[in-house]
């Protein structure tokens, strides 16, 4: 193999990358290959992409207004050619609400992920690396939050901050970081005494630098996996808060709130709750599959050998 031009695949898979970019892309490509080799994971990714698409083009996709219904004439109708998934108790088109609701679902997921995961990561890695009393104090706080009934905490936060989707998100985020901290800490403990961390230390790196630049990147992948696996739980917690009336404000088409209000009709107009239920199921299934796939793809320990 001398001068023949490399195919793009070979270029990516080469074990002699010529630039930082190529190395990074190559690595991403390998991960991607491993990921897509798992058909279910690809399905999961497809679902998430679909969700993104729907959320982005909601106004174009929705056949009706998600907020305005016809209480008097179009209440609780079954699926028909005008209302593909039927109507809810305010006479609104369920499909349109689901489509618009995808935005809220995304918002919940993304915000929780970017609030809870970094808190957990920071607390966990700092505790794990520092050890000693810092570890003791941080872990005590984590334990208290863990030992605290999650719902009480979430309810209290929402009650204190006022209802609304944003506050529900904050509440969920604040109750879901402790497990991440635990994971990050455990991970940190295993790498803390490794030679490559000792090597960085021997370069004269400050503890801050070691945690931020060398330890955190190692914990992130398992954290990402865990977060994607928790997504279903997060959507459901939001739904649970909605069930207790502390989630999204009406008339926002939040899926959990839709189920919560639709459950009253479950015996006769089952589709009112079933449609958002199925949507939640599909999306969280998507995230779960994605998370599973990511685990297999990112986990070099069991995935590689």
């Amino acid at each position, binding site marked *: 193999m001398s001068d023949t031009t490399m195919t793009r695949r070979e270029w990516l898979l080469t074990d002699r990358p010529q630039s930082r970019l190529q190395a990074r892309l190559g690595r991403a490509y390998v991960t991607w290959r491993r990921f897509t080799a798992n058909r279910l994971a690809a399905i999961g990714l497809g679902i998430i992409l679909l969700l993104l698409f729907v959320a982005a083009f909601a106004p174009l996709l929705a056949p009706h207004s998600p907020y305005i*219904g016809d*209480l008097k004439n179009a209440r609780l109708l079954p699926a028909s050619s005008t209302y593909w998934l039927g109507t809810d108790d*305010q006479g609104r088109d369920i499909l349109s609400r689901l489509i618009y609701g995808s935005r809220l679902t995304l918002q919940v997921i993304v915000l929780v992920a970017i609030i809870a995961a970094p808190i957990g990561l920071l607390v966990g890695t700092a505790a794990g690396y520092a050890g000693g009393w810092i570890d003791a104090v941080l872990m005590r706080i984590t334990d208290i939050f863990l030992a605290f009934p999650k719902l009480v905490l979430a309810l209290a936060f929402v009650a204190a901050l006022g209802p609304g989707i944003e506050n529900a998100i904050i509440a969920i985020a604040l109750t879901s970081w402790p497990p991440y901290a635990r994971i990050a800490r455990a991970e940190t403990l295993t790498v803390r005494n490794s030679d490559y961390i000792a090597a960085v230390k021997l370069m004269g790196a400050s503890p801050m630098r070691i945690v931020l630049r060398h330890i955190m990147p190692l914990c992130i992948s398992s954290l990402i996996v865990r977060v994607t696996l928790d997504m279903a739980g997060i959507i459901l917690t939001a739904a649970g808060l909605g069930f207790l009336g502390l989630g999204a404000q009406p008339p926002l088409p939040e899926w959990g709130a839709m189920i919560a209000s639709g459950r009253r009709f479950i015996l006769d107009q089952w589709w009112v709750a079933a449609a958002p239920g199925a949507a939640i199921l599909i999306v969280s299934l998507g995230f779960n599959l994605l998370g599973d796939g990511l685990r297999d793809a990112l986990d070099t320990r069991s995935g590689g050998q």
Partner: protein
Amino acid sequence: ATPADTLVQAWAIDDTITLDPAESFELSPAEFLGNAYDMLVRLDINDTTKVRPGVAESWTVSDDGLTYTFKLKSGLKFASGNPITAKDVAWSFERVVKLDKSPAFILTQFGLTKDNVTEKAKAADDSTFVFTVDKSYAPSFVLNCLTATVGAVMDSKLVLEHVAPVTPTDEYKFDNDFGNGWLKTGYAGSGPFKIRDWRANEILVLERNDNYYGDKPALARVIYRHVKESATQRLMLEAGDIDVARNLEPGDLEAISKNAELATTSAPKGTVYYISLNQKNPNLAKPEVRQALKYLVDYDAIGSTLIKGIGEIRQTYQAKGVLGALDSNPFTFDVAKAKELLEKAGLKDGFSVTMDVRNTQPVTGIAESFQQTVGQAGVKVEIIPGDGKQTLTKYRARNHDMYIGQWGMDYWDPNSNAETFTSNPNNADDGTVKTLAWRNAWDVPELTEKTKAALLERDNDKRATMYKELQQAALDTSPFVLIFQQTEVAGLRGNVKNYKLGPNFDSNFVAPVTKE
């Protein structure tokens, strides 16, 4: 299936926090106490403008309207076997006034105080009870008040065995609790049933009182099971695990009414649902806006869907059937008219406002519908959902813009609602009488006076007219958008007979019920 001698009802009984008649002021305990205790007089559920004898056989009112003399039926016994005497009645009144809990005002509004109660509510002899009021109130008002559960006749001997000592303080000058602690879960009455057991949020058991003087209940016991969900209740009713389902929502009610094995029953209740507009909000304080919003409720649609079967559209604040209730529904959903009014108020482009809504049906549904319909006139409503107590806390502090809620009558008399909707003696933030008018900062000195006057009108017809005028004034100017009056419904197994809901919760009598 349920036992033949037991009536099993599923009902959300989590509002029961005490079984002491001097303290209890919520809906479900009113029903328990109404069945387990007897009062001097009872509401006649066949003609709700009248009262019928309870423990008292007969009564007279002195000409000056200040002295009420009750003659007790003879030979009555409490469930414990102790005889019922006028002393028990007097002691019961004294107990209420001295404990001074939430419902005590129903008695103290007649001028009873801790110091004079022993004089004003007095046993002349074993079978004569004399009650002296401070003004010559309409007798219907006084008697109606005495039908409330707070007027329950207590077994003083039994209760006194259970009093707990208390260290007197400035607020509470007595050295014992009048058995309040024990009675929170205990029972010392003489009604057709006795309360056998109460496990909060779980179950309440009534048992036939064999010492009851009147017609003995056909069933040996009535059990209330705490079940919150309408759908769950319906499933249990269909499966025959309960005999009566009490919290049915329209959809489930409809399904049950179509089921041949099941039946439904209903009765209008003295509870009205309304949207109130806080007058502290400058937009809402404009008279045109108040009226405009009354035109922006889609009464028809709500009536035929959200409250179908469980309520009836009613735009006046007195419940149907109460003395002087005005049956008038002048408003219809009319966006054009509303827009016109808004334009007059200088709010052509509408305005934004928040609305506090509790998380219960049908309130949430109505709020959402209202949100849509006012939107058509350009008014943007932001719904702030909240748990009941949370929203209430805010409402009571006058921190809301709009509030949707319900008001149940404290006692079966027009004064109860008139006083709260159309009187506001002191609109200051620290006002002492926090009526609904006060909560919405609606300052109405004339109507307040008129409400007071109606109380002292001893002629029933004249009194009724006065209340009608008050209601009309409310229709025309008040910041209350009345929507509907609650109809209480129950789904029944086919074999349950004679189950009749009363106009009030304390008159949901279960004694006549039989099972085939």
